């Protein structure tokens, strides 16, 4: 078993070799610009892009014409929010979103607020991180033009009831945008059934290349329009100008095709692996808490808080395993994870959290090794922890007066 082991598949994924193989001809042989209308180099590039559009659309039950290529989900989120606010400014300027969205949505919303272009309601979530459809309904005003709720959370894996929210949006005639970056290719996504009008997702989360993503833009019932944020040539039906990165798009298409074929079996396999990882750790260690919904969660996600032990020191001891933490010490801003805080998880447990993201190329052997190392490190660090010592003495940590700096 080779080290290091990669268990951080929410941050990115290794490319599937089949995807790489599909991409290679488009770098040196079939290198044409897909927008060149007058020669075979352009035509064969355009054909490859059209084929990829079909593969991508099939995965989400959309029409190929409804796929707009971007540089990634972050750009798609920007395009959806800014594009909709600009286009529908005569209808209103209110956005409803949630407090646990990815920064690509939250920062875009804040930027619109700061520029006076939108007012935003940030819905709180329940203790499992789920948005309640009723809260969405209650937040709607006559100025609301967009609801933006993520399909599945990147930190805690909780899956939101997007279908129910879609029904409310339809009823009220408001557009629903869904950041589905962590869900597409992992769980079934159907933009028709779920009532989604705009959807962001990217390739590098599904074993495709970095640098390309898509925004699904509904064409019928209703026809959604957005203002382009990138001007210059009118590519992607005027919604996103710029020469298409053909090899990346080919890879994106192939990645989606593989997901479409293998998603169900893979979901079962990874779900079982995740359950094994969870059981292995929680059976051996006390005071380990699950963050996120116990059942409505991505099959490959696990987020645990280990009381009395800080996340970065945990990761340091597990340096041969790639994971991530909600601890302040691991963030550039020294703030603990805002997602965990939104769940009502205390700061101390937020600092003690570890996120595991399983993927296509992980094995049972790697999981068993991880279980063993987690037990070792948590045990060692608890021996070194003054909080563990106090808890063992029966002291209620919540009652202590801390001499914080």
């Amino acid at each position, binding site marked *: 078993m080779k080290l290091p082991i990669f268990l951080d598949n929410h941050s990115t994924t290794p490319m599937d070799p089949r995807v790489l193989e599909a991409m290679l001809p488009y770098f040196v042989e079939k290198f044409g610009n897909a927008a060149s209308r007058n020669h075979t180099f352009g035509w064969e590039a355009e054909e490859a892009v059209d084929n990829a559009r079909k593969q991508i659309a099939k995965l989400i039950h959309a029409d190929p014409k409804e796929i707009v290529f971007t540089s990634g989900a972050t750009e798609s989120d920007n395009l959806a929010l800014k594009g909709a606010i600009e286009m529908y400014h005569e209808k209103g300027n209110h956005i409803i979103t949630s407090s646990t969205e990815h920064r690509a949505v939250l920062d875009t919303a804040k930027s619109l607020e700061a520029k006076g272009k939108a007012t935003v309601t940030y819905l709180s979530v329940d203790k499992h991180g789920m948005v309640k459809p009723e809260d969405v309904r209650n937040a709607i005003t006559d100025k609301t033009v967009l609801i933006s709720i993520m399909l599945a959370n990147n930190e805690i894996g909780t899956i939101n009831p997007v279908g129910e929210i879609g029904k409310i949006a339809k009823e009220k005639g408001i557009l629903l945008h869904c950041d589905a970056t962590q869900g597409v290719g992992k769980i079934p996504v159907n933009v028709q059934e779920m009532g989604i009008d705009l959807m962001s997702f990217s390739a590098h989360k599904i074993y495709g290349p970095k640098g390309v993503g898509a925004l699904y833009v509904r064409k019928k019932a209703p026809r959604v329009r957005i203002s382009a944020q990138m001007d210059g040539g009118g590519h992607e039906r005027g919604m996103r100008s710029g020469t298409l990165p053909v090899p990346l798009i080919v890879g994106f298409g192939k990645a989606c095709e593989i997901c479409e074929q293998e998603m169900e079996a893979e979901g079962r396999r990874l779900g079982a692996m995740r359950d094994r990882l969870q059981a292995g750790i929680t059976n051996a260690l006390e005071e380990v808490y699950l963050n996120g919904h116990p059942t409505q969660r991505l099959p490959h996600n696990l987020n645990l808080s280990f009381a*009395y032990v800080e996340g970065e020191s945990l990761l340091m001891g597990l340096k041969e395993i790639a994971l991530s933490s909600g601890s302040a010490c691991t963030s550039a801003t020294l703030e603990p994870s805002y997602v965990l805080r939104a769940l009502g998880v205390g700061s101390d447990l937020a600092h003690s959290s570890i996120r595991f993201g399983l993927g296509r190329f992980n094995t049972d052997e790697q999981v068993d090794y991880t279980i063993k190392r987690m037990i070792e490190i948590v045990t060692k660090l608890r021996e*070194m922890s003054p909080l563990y*010592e106090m808890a063992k003495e029966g002291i209620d940590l919540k009652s202590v007066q801390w001499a914080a*700096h």
Partner: protein
Amino acid sequence: MAYSDKVVDHYNNPRNVGSFKKDEKDVGTGMVGAPECGDVMKLQIKVEGDKIVDARFKTFGCGSAIASSSLATEWLKGKTVEEAQTIKNTDIVQELNLPPVKIHCSVLAEDAIKAALADYKKKAGKETK
């Protein structure tokens, strides 16, 4: 985030992990930080005469926090109580090569040292500075 070799060493081989009995009169205990902040250090010294003969620590915090407090216990041993007052966080930063974002760990360690010294002095009936 690249850790200095010294920080890694202190993490893998922490010096003087453990506890003395708090109520013994030759023991000074300093507990600083807060779980909310992700940093709590408990530093203890054992004093004979005016010399610190032994030290122990326990820390809830990142690798740099653990290294800072581990280093502190190393430095405290053999110093007099007065000498120990002069240990500065900047010395810790330099010794461990802490990056700017981790300087606060060394500050907390200095606070822990001062708290332990103050606790001992109080117990010994001497004036706290």
